[in-house]
Structures are given as C-alpha cells and as structure tokens.
C-alpha cells in the first residue's frame, strides 16, 4: 500500500459523526458535496485549509455516534490520506475500511503528534513517522483479511473478487 504523507489536523476525544458531517447535509450522498461540509461543526476552517494527503490525528473514540458512512466518505473526499487515533468507534472503523479510507490506531502517536506536524504513515509496516519532530511510532497493523479488503479497494471489490468472501475463516 502507498504511504500517506501530509500535514496534521489535530482533534481531541469523542469526535462524533455529527460534527464530521452534520445531518443537515445528509439529504445528499454525493462525496464531493459531503466533502464541502467535512468537520464543519468542530472546525469551520477545515475545508478551507485541508490539502490533498493531509492527515487527521485524534485522541479516543474517533467517529462515535451515528453509523453514517457519509462521515468517512466526506473525510476521504476532502483529500485526507489517513486518520490516526488512540481508538476508533467500531462502526466508523468498519466503515473506513469498507470504503478504503486508511485508519490506524496508535495511542503513542496520538500523544506525540501536534497540529501542523508533517507525518508519514507506512501501512505495510504500521510505522508512523513524525517528520517535524523526528520521532517514530509503531501503529497497530491490520489483520490479514482487513489488509485484503483495503488492498482490493474496499469491501465491494473484495466481495467481487472473492464472490462470497468465504476465505475469512481461513485467515
């Protein structure tokens, strides 16, 4: 998988999917339109400042609340290359993998990265490098079958390739 490199947007605990993409915009499911309102209720400047490749770093329970897949879709369509957090809410975690938004759990990295830092993530090794502060962290690598889903470009492609995804139990 390609490495992610970008500048960091830093958030705290319990970033919920209502602030990632407020429900008033859920009358659309168009990724471009959703991206225009990404993080609007927690960081009104996010959309103006985000550059392709940028990285979101947060503390505990990122993506809690509603199951709206619109949340990782909005983040991905805004150009974010990876989300690093101490922990993720479980539905957001599934959704991100299923749509091909790379995410990685790493409490140490969350503590050692500040806003505006330049960070690189190597998904093959799980190593997160803070280039600004010259520090490195070992993130949790995905289980093999999740790597297959991400490598296939999401769950739909994975199922298309596997037809029924029967190999799960053998991984």
């Amino acid at each position, binding site marked *: 998988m390609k490495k992610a490199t970008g500048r960091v947007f830093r958030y705290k605990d*319990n970033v*919920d999917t*209502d*602030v990632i993409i*407020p*429900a*008033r915009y*859920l*009358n*659309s*499911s168009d990724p471009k339109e959703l991206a225009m309102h990404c993080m609007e*209720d*927690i960081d009104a400047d996010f959309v103006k400042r985000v550059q392709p490749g940028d990285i979101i770093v947060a503390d*505990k*329970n990122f993506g*809690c*609340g*509603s*199951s*709206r*897949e*619109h949340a*990782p*879709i909005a983040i991905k369509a805004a150009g974010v290359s990876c989300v690093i957090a101490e*922990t993720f*809410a*479980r*539905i957001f975690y*599934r*959704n991100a993998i*299923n*749509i091909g938004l790379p995410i990685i759990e790493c409490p140490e990295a969350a503590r050692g990265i500040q806003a505006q830092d330049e960070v690189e993530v190597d998904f093959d090794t799980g190593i997160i490098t803070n280039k600004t502060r010259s520090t490195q962290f070992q993130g949790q690598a995905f*289980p093999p*079958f999740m790597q297959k889903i991400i490598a296939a470009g*999401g*769950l*739909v492609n994975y*199922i*298309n390739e596997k*037809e*029924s*995804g*029967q190999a*799960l*139990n053998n*991984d």
Partner: protein
Amino acid sequence: MGMTMTQKILAAHAGLDHVQAGQLIEADLDLVLGNDITSPVAIKELEKMKTEGVFDRDKIALVPDHFVPNKDIKSAEHCKCVREFAYRNQITNYFEVGEMGIEHALLPEKGLTVAGDVIIGADSHTCTYGALGAFSTGVGSTDMAAGMATGKAWFKVPSALRFSLIGKPSRWIGGKDVILHIIGKIGVDGALYKSMEFVGEGVKNLSMDDRFTIANMAIEAGGKNGIFPVDEKTEAYLKAHSVRPYRIYEADPDAVYDAEYIIDLGALRPTVAFPHLPENTRTIDEITEKVPVDQVVIGSCTNGRIEDMRMAASVLKGRHVARGLRCIVIPATQQVYLKAMEEGLLKIFIEAGAIVSTPTCGPCLGGYMGVLAKGERCVSTTNRNFVGRMGHVESEIYLAGPAVAAASAVAGRIASPEQL
C-alpha cells in the same frame, strides 16, 4: 472457557461449536436493515457488485423514517431511490408512509426481529433488538450492501461487560434513567467494541419498552451490542408480535466478562445527560441551578413507544406546557400513534399545549420538525446531545426520559414530576 449470550448466538450463526473474544468469524444474517439516509448509499454499492439482486427478499427491511414524510426535494429523491429499489427487488418488508414508523420501534412490533437472531442495520441504534435476546448491531452502508447481496457479514467476536440489575425502579424511573446512569458510570467509550449483557433478578422488573430503551443506547457507551436474557415477558412479547420461531441462548455459567457492574434499580433517581455527551449525567437532585428550556421533544427510537407516551401523558394530564416553550410529541410508529389516540393520550397532549407529529426521526438528528436556533436549549428523550446534533452548533441538548421531559415542559426548566 464458557461463552456469553452474544458469543453463543454468533457461534451458532457461524456454524461453529465455540468462539472466543477476538476471533474473526463470518455469520449468517437473519435480517438486514436500512433507512432513507443509509440505504441509497448501500443501493449504489450493491449495484457495483457482481450479484443478481438480493440474497433473500424476506430478510431485508427498508424503513424510510429519518427525513420522512419527505422534508425537501433531495430527501424525496433518496426516498424514491429506496422505494424503486424495494419494488424492483420485491422486498417484502418495505414500509411506506402510512405503515412506517421509526425503524427500531417498528421492526419488533412487526415481529421481524426475534430472540436468537443475528441482525445488522445501517443505523447505529440497530442494537435495540438485543432487548429481545437477539444479537443486533449497527453497520454502515457498504456492510448493508454486502449483507443484502450475500446474507453474511464478518464480525470480530466481542468480549463482554456484565451488568447485574437488582431491585425495582420507583414511580418515575424508566429504561432511560437506567441506561443514562450506566453511560455516566462507564463513559461514552466504556463498552467500546464490547457486548453489554444486562442480567440479574432486576430484569423482571423492567418492561419490554424499558429494555428496548436500554439496549437502544448501548451504542452511546461505544458498545457493539446490548443484550437481555429471554424471560416470560420477552416470550409473551414475541408470541404477541411474531409468527417466526425464536431461539433462546443463555450465557454459560463460566462465561468470562471483562468487568461486572451491579446496578440497583431501586436506588436510581431521574437522570439527565448535560451537553454535549451522553456521559455527562446528573441526577435530578444534583441539578441545583435553574436550567431554562425552549423546547421539549418526546419520541424517537429510544423513547417513542406506548409506555413513554403514557408516562409523558401522566405528567401532562391537567397541566399546561410553559408559555413560550414548544413541546413536540412524536409517537414512534403508527401503532403507537393509534394506541395513544385510543387511550386518550393525544387529547391530553394537545390540551396541554403540545403538538403531536406523525412518526419520524426528524428532530433527533436536526433534520426537521424541531430544529434548534443559536443558544436554544432542548430537553429531549432522544439519544445524542452532541454539538449541533439538533440544530445550531451553539444550541444545547439535555437527554432525559419522558417523565423528566414532560415535567420540564410544564415547568419551563429542567424538572422532575416530583417537583411540579
């Protein structure tokens, strides 16, 4: 090592004799659910798959409820997409305006969810059906699409927290006070990735509606699912609502739990979650300051069932909502609406100065039917008080059960019925 209720259900649906926490499995699904927000995304994904239609037209439920009746043109287009998909694939359980209700109140009422099922839904409050002794959990639209196509989903088998309930709740205490108390205790990520298993002799003192409310908010503690054992009340409910056979799974005596909590229902006090997280709970006795309120909402998948309507009506009867306050009552399903009418509850609400709406999720997620302006405060029986959830980012939501919500509507400030 023994298995929990959840683990036993998952093992049976994966064709395995035994599973353990952390194991990745693929399970057969008894029901796949979606609404008007999540289904259009799922339908788009499903159409990219190399499959012919859906795995079983009887095991899919499509319930437009969030922005229904259509709140604007874009929402109408989404509903049209869901409707056309349902007709094209001859989906048995598609619920149009007129028969629809808020999904998690509707499906148990229609008998589509029974004990022992494995259910996924593209809505986070799908965990509600754990009240019936089922494993049910929220997923996103892509998982819903995969579930509709294959009838299967992958899961990481969860470990569990055990909540032993003892005692009997007092007059104004309902399921909402129980679950808010628990979330206040363990935090909004206190059950992250885990099952919340509610057991003990206190369970028999909780009605089915109380149990639906408690299981419904397992997600607000980060839980993968919430689940109750099946007892006489559950079986009576299942027999009254469903013709489907059900199966009872009990935890092994040597099942392992990450932690155990004892909750004395008799000691609970009316509980309110302050902005902006469901874990910011205070009992009514701990609220010493006056908190003026602009709006009260009584409804939702959490508290829109008939007992919630009765509880609210018992407070509002012969009283009037405070001048300048909007009180919005939303029965969760057509059946609840009809029953509330037959029991004279709607008359009580209207005479008290409240409005009564057709079923919709509307205000809970700031969609419509009660959006908040800057600086406004709402006491709501819904499930989330996040920043901007019901409207302006500078509005405030206080979560409570129907008794406190109704009393607050009368008092014009946060209050319990005892204080009126």
